[in-house]
């Protein structure tokens, strides 16, 4: 590559567009002039200028060390930013060049030397006309020239990847700089591409995959595929590891080499090609990790085609470790690449591209532990790679690994770019036994890696698509960790936690703390015209993950055998201690969804429901007994005695009339309090005491039998009010009227289903209580007075009949304000009587109400929005089939935020 002997009139010097160009020449050899002529002034960093900057004198030799520090610093900054940089200094000594080569390597760019070998006399002449150099000792130039001549032969050995030597002023004059693209820079190629994951000699699966992608194979006379082309001119890109382990590595090589040669494909090398290349060059390598199979196959090939091995060697040597494609939007390499290495050229970059980053540790199978670089990746370009077998290919921070372990019996996967569609084919068999199973039994193992404490512990920031970065404090994460670890259901079944909900603004209406007028006014001012008022069921929040059956649950959620979903509370705990009860509820739900035709309609075999489960006493019995009922009991025990004492004192003529009147009012309040909580309590599992809110229906031919004959669900009511997500889709933004219409169909279908079911079980007549409860609602136009008034009246009627209250939500589900900020997804308006449970029996007394009106809603609202955004994020990640740890990160953050300090009465 040395151009020393070439001498032409116009001489073209090739310089990679990102490199560190080191000019080498004695003082007076014309470096600065050369640099000025061929490069931008800003690309040139000159030692003279730096000397001037630090010492006010470009020739102050005592400032040289500082000047070079500065020079290195500037050059380093430019290289880090990916800019071509020219160093204008004599660089005649090898130490000076060595430090520059180190600098280039640190920034993974190529060092290039341009030597200006100009005779001494000419240099001296030039210096003489420069007053500032007039005093230079005469021995300097001859010394520098001696050093230069000594260096010439060793420049390439020192590490310069290109060396251009210009002998004499004429050659210097005649030189021209040509910037050339780096080998890895294929930004001008825009595809479209089909990027294909690790093949490992699975030639047959590769043929199938190419066929599925639409490529037409060309075969040789023996029927072996030797090339393939896509009718629409798509380009295949292979991420490497074509060979080893599998049944036909030569066949794969023949096809891929043909495609690369014909321009139908690009290919980057994998670590297996690298090793094979070294083997073919006669280097000593360990014939392990499936290389033995390849060697054997190549030997067989050799008997028929003695040159095949050489062609493979040349092909492997020609491979470039990674490519930057499609205007810089796509990077393809074998083992993944952090952004700072994109488009760079160094041994380190190549090594990372081939082998990835390892932590230096080994796992339980003796395999190196890979550093999860993709988790930190924030780059703009999508990185598509292979190398690490994973059960499913999934995007993570704009990176995706396409190695789905075909040779180990998994699948071979391709990614269509820019469509970002995954296309895969299953392995025909297990060609090679994996050392470590592709998945492990720990949660998350099936989707890449098990959950790690680093995903959740300490202060964390969760990136959400709807609200940006949301922070979780350390102490909140600590509390959530305890609850999540000790009490929650298996994280695989916990794809979502519901956010908290703020109440409406505090009302100033007489006798009310909360009133719908406030909710309507708030949404109106947020620009939300249509809102839906939904009956607020007084039970406990329940989220139900319903799969069609346990096969679906196992396949999609990696659930244990016999488990077809989960019903859990708002902190992720199983709703029922008895899994059989959960199972019964899930089966009923699954049947109702089936009868309503929702599986087909939503094109899914699982769905996630947000619901309220009644009665309240089922889950909150401890709280009821120790807090609410206890207050009632104490009141009832004390008040008669108090009243008697006061009445007796009054009878004696003691002035207690004011006190007596007050106590009588309080007795009324206390009774109202007890009434308030009793409405939400009833026993379950007893068919004689069903749901008090509903007339007991006794359809024809159905007999009620004793509690032994029931399925134990009597009295339990589940009111779903939102379908959160289904396969491939979050439904969080589906308008609430459509949501509820689908849910109505489930509720209706359950009734029909129960009838049908009952006739089948004619011999064991079982009374099946209805599980599903409908949610009443009313749509209100916030701009319309009459509509608002109707909304208020609806709420008054609802609460007068014992209802807890209502939730007001924007009908459209997901709404942003004019300024782009999220609108509260709902606010609650709780009934006047219900609030006694929250604020105490006597809260309605004017003096108490006045004080209670001072409540601080700001933090609750902010919390509600943050949890909402995290919930949406969890649903999106779940719907996108992201790895478990990504879903869990968002779910965990919701739980953590629930432990933030906020007035619990809100």
């Amino acid at each position, binding site marked *: 590559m040395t151009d020393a002997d070439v001498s032409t009139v116009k001489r073209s010097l090739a310089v990679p567009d990102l490199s560190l160009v080191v000019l080498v020449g004695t003082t007076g050899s014309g470096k600065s002039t050369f640099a000025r002529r061929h490069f931008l002034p800003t690309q040139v960093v000159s030692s003279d200028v730096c000397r001037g900057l630090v010492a006010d004198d470009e020739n102050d030799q005592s400032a040289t060390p500082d000047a070079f520090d500065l020079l290195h610093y500037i050059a380093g900054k430019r290289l880090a930013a990916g800019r071509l940089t020219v160093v204008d200094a004599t660089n005649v000594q090898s130490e000076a060049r060595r430090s520059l080569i180190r600098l280039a390597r640190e920034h993974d760019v190529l060092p290039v030397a341009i030597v200006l070998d100009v005779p001494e006399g000419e240099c001296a002449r030039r210096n003489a006309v420069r007053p500032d150099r007039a005093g230079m000792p005469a021995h300097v130039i001859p010394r520098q020239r001696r050093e230069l001549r000594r260096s010439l032969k060793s420049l390439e050995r020192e590490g310069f990847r290109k060396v251009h030597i210009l002998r004499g002023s004429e050659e210097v004059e005649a030189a021209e700089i040509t910037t050339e693209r780096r080998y890895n820079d294929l930004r001008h190629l825009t595809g479209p591409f089909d990027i294909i994951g690790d093949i490992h000699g699975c030639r047959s699966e590769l043929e199938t995959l190419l066929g599925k992608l639409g490529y037409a194979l060309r075969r040789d006379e023996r029927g072996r595929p030797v090339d393939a082309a896509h009718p629409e001119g798509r380009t295949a890109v292979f991420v490497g590891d074509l060979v080893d382990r599998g049944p036909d590595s030569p066949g794969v090589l023949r096809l891929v080499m043909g495609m690369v040669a014909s321009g139908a494909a690009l290919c980057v090398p994998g670590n297996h090609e690298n090793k094979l290349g070294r083997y073919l060059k006669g280097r000593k390598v360990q014939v392990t990790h499936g290389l033995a199979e390849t060697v054997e196959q190549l030997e067989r090939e050799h008997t028929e085609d003695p040159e095949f091995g050489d062609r493979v060697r040349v092909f492997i040597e020609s491979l470039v470790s990674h490519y930057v494609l499609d205007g810089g939007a796509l990077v393809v390499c074998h083992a993944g690449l952090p952004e700072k290495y994109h488009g760079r050229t160094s041994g380190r970059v190549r090594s990372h591209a081939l082998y990835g980053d390892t932590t230096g540790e080994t796992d339980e199978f003796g395999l190196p532990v890979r550093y999860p670089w993709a988790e930190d990746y924030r780059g703009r370009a999508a990185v598509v790679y292979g190398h690490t077998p994973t059960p499913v290919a999934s995007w993570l921070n704009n990176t995706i690994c396409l190695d789905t372990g075909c040779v180990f019996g998994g699948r071979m996967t391709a990614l269509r770019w820019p469509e970002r569609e995954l296309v895969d084919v299953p392995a025909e068999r297990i060609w090679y036994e994996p050392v470590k199973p592709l998945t492990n039994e720990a949660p998350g193992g099936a989707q890449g890696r098990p959950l790690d404490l680093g995903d959740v512990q300490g202060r964390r920031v969760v990136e959400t698509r709807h609200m940006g970065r949301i922070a979780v404090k350390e102490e909140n994460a600590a509390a959530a960790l305890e609850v999540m670890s000790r009490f929650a259901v298996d994280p695989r079944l916990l794809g979502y936690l519901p956010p908290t909900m703020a109440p409406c603004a505090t009302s100033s209406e007489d006798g009310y703390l909360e009133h719908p007028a406030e909710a309507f006014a708030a949404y109106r001012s947020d620009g939300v015209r249509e809102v839906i008022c939904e009956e607020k069921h007084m039970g406990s929040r329940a989220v139900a993950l319903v799969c069609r059956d346990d096969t679906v649950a196992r396949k999609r959620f990696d659930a244990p055998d016999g488990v077809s979903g989960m019903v859990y509370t708002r902190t992720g705990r199983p709703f029922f201690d008895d899994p059989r009860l959960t199972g019964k509820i899930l089966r009923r739900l699954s049947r109702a969804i089936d009868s309503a035709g929702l599986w087909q309609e939503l094109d899914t075999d699982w769905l996630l429901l947000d619901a309220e489960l009644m009665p309240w006493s089922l889950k909150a019995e401890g709280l009821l007994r120790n807090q609410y009922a206890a207050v009632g009991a104490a009141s009832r025990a004390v008040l008669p005695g108090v009243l008697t004492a006061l009445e007796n004192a009054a009878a004696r003529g003691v002035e207690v009339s004011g006190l007596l009147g007050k106590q009588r009012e309080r007795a009324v309040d206390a009774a109202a309090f007890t009434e308030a909580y009793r409405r939400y309590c009833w026993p379950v599992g007893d068919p004689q005491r069903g749901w008090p809110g509903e007339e007991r229906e006794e359809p024809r031919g159905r007999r009620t039998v004793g509690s032994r004959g029931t399925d134990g669900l009597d009295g339990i009511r589940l009111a779903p009010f939102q379908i959160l997500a289904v396969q491939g889709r979050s439904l969080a933004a589906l308008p609430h009227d459509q949501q509820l219409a689908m849910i109505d169909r489930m509720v209706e279908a359950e009734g029909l289903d129960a009838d049908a079911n009952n006739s089948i079980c004619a011999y064991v007549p079982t009374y099946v209580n209805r599980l599903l409860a409908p949610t009443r609602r009313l749509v209100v136009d916030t701009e319309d007075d009459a509509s608002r008034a109707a909304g208020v009246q609806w709420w008054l009627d609802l609460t007068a009949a014992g209802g807890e209250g209502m939730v007001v939500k924007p009908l459209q589900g997901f709404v942003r304000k004019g300024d782009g900020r999220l609108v509260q997804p709902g606010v609650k308006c709780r009934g006047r009587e219900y609030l006694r449970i929250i604020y105490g029996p006597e809260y309605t007394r004017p003096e108490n109400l006045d004080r209670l009106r001072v409540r601080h809603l700001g933090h609750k609202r902010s919390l509600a929005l943050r949890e909402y955004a995290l919930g949406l994020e969890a649903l999106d990640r779940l719907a996108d089939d992201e790895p478990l740890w990504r879903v869990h990160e968002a779910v965990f953050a919701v739980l953590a935020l629930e432990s933030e300090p906020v007035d*619990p009465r809100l």
Partner: protein
Amino acid sequence: MILGRVFLTITTTGTDESPATDLGFLLHKHPDKAQRFSTSHGTAHVLYPEATAQRCTAALMLEVDPVALVRRGRGKGRGGAPDSALAQYVNDRPYAASSLLAVALSSVFSSALRGQCKARPELPERPLPLRIEVPALPARGGAELVQRLFTPLGWAVTAEPVALDEEFPEWGDSRYVRLVLEGEQRLADALRHLYVLLPVLDDAKHYWVAPDEVDKLLRSGEGWLEGHPEQRLITSRYLTRRWSLTRTALERLELARLAEADDTEVEEIDNAVAETTAEFAGEFAGESAEEEDGTQKTEGGVSGETTEAAGKPVPLAVQRREAILDALRGTESARVLDLGCGQGQLLAALLKDARFTEIVGVDVSMRALNETARRLRLDRMSERQSTRLKLMQGSLAYTDSRLRGYDAAVLCEVIEHVDPPRLPALEYAVFGAARPRAVVVTTPNVEYNVRWETLPAGKARHPDHRFEWTREEFRSWAGEVAERHGYTVEFRPVGPDDPEVGPPTQLALFRFGADGTKTDGTSTDRTSTDDKRTDHSTTETTSTTTAKEAAA
């Protein structure tokens, strides 16, 4: 939640010579007036429903201002909002009533309490036929404890439990009893009994702690407390609980909020540190108390879980720790993880043996860790000692890189606190990811439960146990774990090995590739690993495959 009223009546009977209305002099409150007094928690009223020479009743009524009470508990909530979790869980509960009543008693009837009566100095010395009625008395320990506390003081006691809600008889009784005390007592003594015993009977969730509480107790208890058969309980409840519970309440705010979000009581999820420990908090430094306490903690459901060994009963917890230490010594481990360290009983034992150079206590409960730090007096430990010990929050539901590279890990009575569906995660976190050379796992042997007479049949030893295994079940689990992760396992009994039902505790000692049959695989594994490092090759192989290849 809002307090009920607090109410009590004191009735005495008399004759014309010694009229019952003398009560008015004794209480310094005129029988014909209704008087009101401001106290720190609300307004107290004193009035007399009846006042004749034959019979005189004084009623004390405290109207607690619930809104003010909640606002008192301002914490670090944002925007000046009350940190209501604190308010809720410490102040604003009906069972704080007794403390408040005691405060009211002392401020409204202070002279009577001291036994002073300026107008009629002879009166206070005279025993009166008294009838004291408290219609709703919060009583932790129920009517039975009420009897035990008041009967020795010469009272005829009627204590009837108050039903929670007659509409829901299945809910049973409330924590309140209707209390009637009858007897001949000096009024001052009667008031002092109430002043001390009402808070003792309360669930003792006081948030107020005055530094002179001990003096107050001594003063009010003078003449009756020293001889009381329940003196220890009275003193400990009156004094020690308040400190620890105040502290506890502050420590568990986050958990309290999570419980709140789930409509459950905080005790349901904040149970990593047994409540009973607080009773012994003052004495923990003593070894005996520690053992007693350790037993309480790990086997809360079983009273006095000890087994006879060498004639002297040795608590099972101690035997278990000894067995674990033996196992660790046998594996020549120096750097040891105590996974699920609870309140640090095992850590304390490990610290006493210098061969353990690095001891890491991990627990998911911050409260347990704080308690451990206090118990081990971490802040006062010498630097050399404290560098050997590290405490950190962690969870075996997740892999944790901090746990890699240790010689041994102990899971002492831990696995049975994990829901069975989540055991695979624990298994992977310990044996797959942390992968210490040795792992010691102990767990109860459920077969042995029949040997404990105090343990009802079918009941777990601890309310938080998610399962208890037979020997067979444990062996089969441990065997599969060992197989999956390349460990060998041996089993050892802890406690007396009953010929029929086995030992009370079962211990499994896992070793990584220690066994002869495994060594082969391990060594191959090691070399191939090294090859891979130098070779940069990060692809897969097994020792078995390599061996197969070699053989072929």
